[in-house]
């Protein structure tokens, strides 16, 4: 079950990576990043359960707070992006004003 838990975390992380690469909608890219962070947390939990130590859950808590901060900043950026370009396509922002 421990091994299968790691396999599950790997599959979820790969799916999140594929989502970031395939989708061009910024909301979907953010959601895929959430899936990847969650898979990393799952790997920590499985490792903590393997040795029955609380450290895995503590690292999961840190990932959780990091995901909350990341999502708040990311969604604020999405709102700014939408006000600027009137659409959510990430390819719309491929030009910089340098």
């Amino acid at each position: 079950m421990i091994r299968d838990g790691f396999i599950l975390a790997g599959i979820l992380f790969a799916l999140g990576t594929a989502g970031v690469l395939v989708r061009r909608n910024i909301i979907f890219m953010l959601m895929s990043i959430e899936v990847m962070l969650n898979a990393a947390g799952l790997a920590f939990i499985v490792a903590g359960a393997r040795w029955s130590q609380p450290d895995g859950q503590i690292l999961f808590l840190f990932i959780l707070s990091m995901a909350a901060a990341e999502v708040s900043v990311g969604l604020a950026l999405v709102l700014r992006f939408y006000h600027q370009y009137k659409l959510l396509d990430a390819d719309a922002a491929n030009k910089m004003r340098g």
Partner: protein
Amino acid sequence: MQVVFYISGAIAILATILMLTRLNAVHALLYLVVSLLAIAVVFYVLGAALAAALEVIIYAGAIMVLFIFVVMLLNLGETAANEERRLLNASMWVGPSILSAVLIAEFVYILSEESHANIPAPVGPKQVAAALYAPYLIGVELASMLLLAGIVGAYHLGFRKVRKGDS
């Protein structure tokens, strides 16, 4: 209990795949919530009860509500009304409902099944809290600083008005 683990893992993978292939952001969010709930069940089976509760409360509760707020803020106008009309169709929410129903059935099965054979020894919230506030205290402080930075950053980014002719 092992059966519960495998079914939950399958639901998590299936819901994530369905999330990635949706066209409507709200449908994708529904599938993402189902995926997070399935992973919470996996946490519980692995003996991490505190992490399972926090996954449901913070991930599936707070963070997903934030996403839904933003999606609702962005989809204004007539297209949103058309979307809403289409959302009332029963075929739109039957997928998340079926997956969630399987999770509820598993939950009932866990509570009714008392045998805890062949699963890791559970790590209770007391152990986690004792370790969190003794060796990992600096991490807690750093997490609070990170959250403060997140709040300030989100406020700063969300508050600034876009000037006319800026694009």
